[in-house]
């Protein structure tokens, strides 16, 4: 057991050190930062608009939010006038972060199954340890990306309000946690597909497709059985169907458990595949 943990730690640390050299991770991270740069600019304008109720510049961004989030921004003004910046940040995070995290973590094992690098590891280390070590690295990459956006959001809020509060810090921590929790099954899905496909392109495409389609499965079900009572409650049992309610202290136990169950399932399947697969 000690040896196993030590190997997981060794793989994890080695992978973490190698991560900046992975082009997919570095390039995606740059795009992730660029997107959030624009997003924060828009959120600052939104904040100004809400505070002054008059900003022509924010019209485009508001239109975008209304369309993407399917929420009327004026509603936020009514119930969360001082927290619109953070709520918008949280919802944007929930909506977009997992796609970036998927791209950054889709190649957990695929490329090195393809180029045979694993031949150097398999005689030295258990397959379980390799798989889990790399999964931990991917989760850490996702967590780092999410934490960076959280810290930036907190910094921007400090800049906007010229002050901070313990509530702001707690909200940022809570948002980062939920975004990470939301991403968790997708990172595990990536590990599963990566172990199965052995190809970076296939792994990325399959993970992105599934990440996009899985939440839509519920939409189809809802559409098909819309007259069935309680159908909406099923929403929470599909990964990727978090709502912004988690950001308004309306989180339920299923919000906690469902991602964990899916993550465990994907890890179990992925690990089984990785342990049984051949490395030709």
């Amino acid at each position: 057991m000690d040896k196993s943990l030590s190997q997981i730690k060794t793989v994890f640390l080695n992978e973490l050190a190698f991560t900046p050299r992975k082009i997919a991770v570095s390039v995606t991270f740059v795009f992730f930062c660029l997107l959030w740069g624009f997003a924060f600019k828009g959120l600052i304008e939104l904040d100004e608009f809400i505070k002054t109720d008059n900003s022509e510049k924010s019209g485009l961004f508001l239109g975008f939010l209304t369309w993407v989030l399917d929420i009327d921004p004026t509603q936020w003004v009514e119930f969360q006038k001082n927290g619109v910046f953070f709520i918008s940040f949280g919802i944007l995070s929930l909506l977009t972060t997992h796609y970036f995290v998927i791209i950054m973590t889709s190649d957990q094992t695929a490329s090195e199954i393809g180029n045979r690098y694993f031949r150097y590891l398999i005689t030295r280390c258990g397959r379980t340890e390799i798989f889990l070590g790399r999964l931990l690295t991917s989760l850490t990459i996702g967590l780092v990306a999410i934490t960076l956006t959280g810290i930036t959001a907190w910094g921007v809020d400090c800049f906007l309000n010229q002050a901070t509060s313990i509530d702001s810090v707690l909200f940022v921590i809570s948002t980062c946690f939920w975004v990470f929790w939301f991403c968790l099954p997708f990172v595990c899905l990536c590990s599963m597909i990566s172990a199965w496909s052995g190809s970076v392109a296939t792994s990325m495409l399959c993970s992105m497709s599934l990440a996009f389609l899985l939440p839509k499965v519920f939409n189809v079900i809802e559409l098909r059985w819309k007259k069935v009572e309680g159908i909406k409650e099923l929403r929470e049992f599909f990964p990727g169907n978090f709502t912004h309610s988690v950001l308004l202290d309306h989180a339920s136990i299923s919000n906690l458990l469902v991602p964990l169950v899916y993550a465990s399932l994907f890890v179990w399947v992925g690990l089984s595949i990785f342990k049984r697969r051949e490395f030709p």
Partner: protein
Amino acid sequence: MGRALHFQKKGISVTPVVETQNLGKAFGATVALEGVNLELPSNQIIGLVGPNGAGKTTLFSILSGFLKPGFGSVRVLGHSPLSPQLQGRVSILPQDAPLRKGVCIRKQFEFFAKLQGLSPETASEEAEKVLEEVDLLEKSFEGPDSLSHGMRKRASLAQSFIGNPELILLDEPTAGLDPVTTQKVRELVLRKAEGRTIIISSHNLAELQEACDSVAILNLGKLVDFRPVSEIIGRSKTMIIRLEGPPEEQLTKAVSELPEVVSVTCGDQGNPRIIIRVDGSIDDSEVDLAILGVFKEQKVRYREIRRGESLEEKVVQITKQEPGDEKTGMDSSSELAN
């Protein structure tokens, strides 16, 4: 159904490091290995030879746990190839597997050593040691992408020595290396062979003949021979005389009539030579003198005299034969029995 081919060192009980029973592997319709029964003794250098597609790399891949056996069983150091008990005890120089680009080879070796359970300090020392053994210490802080082909090969070879493994599998260790480096690699392998088993898959049969104690020959996925090198090449029983032109019938007849000679085989037009099989119980020098006496009598000039056939010749002969005739093959040309 393959034959069980194994041998033991005289008078010494040898535990097999590798034991396969009816081992087979197919990729779709292509059979890569079929009915391989093999017991490889410990503390030897063993060559694994055969033409392209014979199944050498597939066998290595199964022994290392990269591939699962299609059928049959395999034990490595008494365990299944994927057993945690084998971690760090078996290592491989894989064919065509790159080290990580952009990461210095020393860091990569330290990582490998840590995976094998070495402490960070020992891992660093071990990485330095193996890099020094392949003359790459100066390049240790460079990535594999900045090394030449030969250096990369040596680096890959070096990683297989990390942590004193009991069984080392070397897949084409000298492919693409210049003669000087090849010789250094051979010397290194010989040094490293003390107290462990090394299996070398290679097409460089001259190197294998020099380095190996025994050789397993694969052809079309089947094990066709496994014997000590000296036995395969028939060092004490065969004499090969390379001639300047095709041998005349008179010469071969005279040689075959010598009491020490068992049989005489002639080479073909492109390879003028006679292969003389002699009675192994008679003193070598007596036989040599008798045969050379015939050459002197007949005033035949020769280019080269060699004791034993080359491994390359034997492997070509053996792999050319039909299955089932593995141990009786001779040169394709005429044979005169005494």
